[in-house]
């Protein structure tokens, strides 16, 4: 048993915190502390209570029971603003930036330096530049946030927290959309903050990145505190086992045993000026082809282009040997090509609609009678079938999708395309923001899909996932495929190598 945290030695200390929502207990008697100069990781599956814990720390929620103390002094935060004033800053996973304002204006939003009653624009810009420099970000302080990539926005969010000179910094999945270079940069900053005496609470689903970063780790499960221990005395496998409460021998399905067939999708010379290409690749029946590469290397863009979601400047696409003219997703879907977006809420789901309605959305014709009316009974039956088959956790097929967890939302999107009976499926970051248990379910599902003869393309930024799941890997760099590798015969290092450098002519010669 771990000793209870002691307020005297810690910067921020919570003891016996309980938080209920109506009848649901989100946190039950949880104790937690952050010391000055440490990085403290919080691990747990979705719904374990991590977000609630963070929101209690950052003043969003007041605890129902238990106490909170800062520097050994008991206190209550009336609002996040009050917590900020006390030096507690939180970097939200969902970005909280104002798109129509510039980077500098966002960083200092609500705290603009004034000259008289006007904003001191020069100071605003200079101070913002200083924060960005400290992070090593090359974004201009004058750039509009709406024009930035998700990764860049994430860095701006982090710069904003830095600007608050926070003593306790709470980071919720800060690397989920960062490239490896940006992640390295972020970790450097975290080390620097540590040395300066800040306490950092670090939440991440990517357990492998905790190595060398984290001092202590706390595991939550079902709203309860499971353990807190020094990271040096544990390992990733043990943490995962504590999180899920069972031992997880193998995250990935066993080595793929179904043979791949003939080429189902052939892409030649696909290009769009300023975005990608020319790109060539083949996808076989029953194959899982990985698209690896850094964020912004053109993987999503190529997938969306094949799907007809974005225009192309040239190139050809052939499905089972037949040339296709794909001008819109309508054409692609008719031919049996599907694309599951990395951004479920923005591009994949009609979140205000019911689970059943989302599942049939791409194929309403199949549940429509001759008069053009939807057969509600059939639709519900279809929904129930997929809810059972994919293990979607929902109280009812009529539940609004917005209320489901991330993993279950992803399964609804998958169900939508299964019901459409697609021949080629593009999965764009299918496990982003999903807890470990749901990830395993999705891996197994992808594997089963491939075994039924579907060609699967998996875009992923997580190399272990690429290595564990795919048959071959197409590595992207700067909008082109630099190399296609046999997964069995490659390594993370080799993939990273081709993802970081463009294939020069000499290298091509050496390889041949």
């Amino acid at each position: 048993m771990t000793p209870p945290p002691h307020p005297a030695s810690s910067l921020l200390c919570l003891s016996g915190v309980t938080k209920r929502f109506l009848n649901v207990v989100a946190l039950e008697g949880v104790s937690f502390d952050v010391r000055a100069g440490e990085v403290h990781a919080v691990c747990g599956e979705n719904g374990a209570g991590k977000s609630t814990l963070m929101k209690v720390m950052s003043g969003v929620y007041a605890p129902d029971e238990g106490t909170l103390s800062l520097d050994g002094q008991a206190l209550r935060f009336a609002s996040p603003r009050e917590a900020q004033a006390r030096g507690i800053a939180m970097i939200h996973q969902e970005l909280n930036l104002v798109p129509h304002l510039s980077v500098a204006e966002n960083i200092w939003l609500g705290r603009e330096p004034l000259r008289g009653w006007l904003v001191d624009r020069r100071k605003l810009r200079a101070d913002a530049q200083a924060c960005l420099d400290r992070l090593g970000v090359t974004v201009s302080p004058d750039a509009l946030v709406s024009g930035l990539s998700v990764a860049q926005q994430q860095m701006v969010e982090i710069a904003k927290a830095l600007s608050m000179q926070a003593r306790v910094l709470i980071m919720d999945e800060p690397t989920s959309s960062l490239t490896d270079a940006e992640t390295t940069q972020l970790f450097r900053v975290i080390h620097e903050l540590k040395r300066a005496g800040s306490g950092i609470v670090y939440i991440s689903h990517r357990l492998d990145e905790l190595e060398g970063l984290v001092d202590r780790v706390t595991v939550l499960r079902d709203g309860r505190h499971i353990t807190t221990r020094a990271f040096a005395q544990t390992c990733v496998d043990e943490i995962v086992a504590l999180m899920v409460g069972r031992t997880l021998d193998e995250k990935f399905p066993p080595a793929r045993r179904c043979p791949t067939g003939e080429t189902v999708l052939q892409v030649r010379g696909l290009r769009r000026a300023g975005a990608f290409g020319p790109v060539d690749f083949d996808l076989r029946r029953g194959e899982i082809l990985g698209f690896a590469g850094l964020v912004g290397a053109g993987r999503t863009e190529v997938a969306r282009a094949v799907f007809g979601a974005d225009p192309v400047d040239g190139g050809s696409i052939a499905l089972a040997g037949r040339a296709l003219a794909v001008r819109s997703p309508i054409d692609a879907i008719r031919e049996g090509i599907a694309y599951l977006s990395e951004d479920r809420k923005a591009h994949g789901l009609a979140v205000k609609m019911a689970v059943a309605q989302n599942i049939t959305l791409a194929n309403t014709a199949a549940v429509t009678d001759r008069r053009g009316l939807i057969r509600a009974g059939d639709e519900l039956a279809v929904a129930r079938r997929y809810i059972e088959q994919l293990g979607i956790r929902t109280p009812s097929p009529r539940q609004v999708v917005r209320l489901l967890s991330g993993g279950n939302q992803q399964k609804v999107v998958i169900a939508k395309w299964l019901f459409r009976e697609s021949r080629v499926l593009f999965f764009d970051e299918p496990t982003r923001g999903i807890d470990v248990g749901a990830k395993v379910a999705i891996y197994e599902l992808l594997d089963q899909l491939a075994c039924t003869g579907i060609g699967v393309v998996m875009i992923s930024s997580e190399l272990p996932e690429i290595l564990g799941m795919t048959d071959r890997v197409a590595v992207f760099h700067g909008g082109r495929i630099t190399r296609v590798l046999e997964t069995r015969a490659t390594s993370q290092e080799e993939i990273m190598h081709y993802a970081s450098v463009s294939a020069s002519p000499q290298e091509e010669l050496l390889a041949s």
Partner: protein
Amino acid sequence: MNERQKDLVQKFAALGGLFVLVTVFSLASPAFFSLGNGMTVALQVTSIAYLGIGATCVIITGGIDLSVGSILALSGVVAALSVRAGVNVPLAMLLGLLTGAACGLVNGLCVTLLRLPPFIATLAMMLVARGVALQITDAKAIGGLGESFAELGNGSLWRVARIGADGFPDVVFPGIPYPVVLMIVLALGAGLMLARSRLGRHLYAVGSNSEAARLSGIDVRRVTLFAYVLSGTLAGLTGCVLMSRLVTAQPSEGVMYELDAIAAAVIGGTSLTGGIGTVSGTVIGAFVIGILRNGLNMTGVSAFVQMIIIGLVILVTVWIDQLRNRR
């Protein structure tokens, strides 16, 4: 409580509100609760309901249509001018309807092809249609349209009358006015379309998340276009019915009706952010507005105070709606 039960509770809450209104007004004014006044209210509600159904479809897609008041004036005027030019009445009314549809088509094309914000596209149409209506009539009312022109607005279904001893007809049952019949048919048709047809499903999907709808293979442009054409056509119909009821075509008719239509939809639970709304809700909303106006009139409340009350009702209903959804 699942979604369906919640939905039912909301319906009954709205219906309950209506019931309370009817009770209060009945107590305040004995003349309120009578078959004759009931028909009057129903008749008055019809135009709000027609326009409200169109507004509901447009708002479900995440858009807005500000032009229906002007379109109804233009359509009515076109129908009347056609009659004056010697076209027979059914054909003239069809021309009026087509005028509305054409205006809606222009709205829809501005939104889908030119990618103009719906507010702007339909605001422009509101001015243009009104201007055309005033221009082609010299801003004068068109009368002398004949009895057959009045039939649609003033006739009734199942009217039973006997010739009495004095030689005048005694009305046994006043019948159901054609506009009310039309309202029932439209509400049932549009309700079925939204709740059960593929097209209806696609309207909700576009309003809920148009990008997800597009990536699911839904022709977002065509669905959006449909909503505006439907709204325009219903405005054309409203124009024909209204002008027929008055047996005169007024180019200045229907000012601010678009706001009544939107208010009816919103009171009925349609969300201005799109993706949510029902025809039954909108019809209830239309009746709330109609009964409030009628009841306040009969209890002698001034038109100005009526505006204040209806304004507050919109605020409160939407606020309650949001409170419920936040939970």
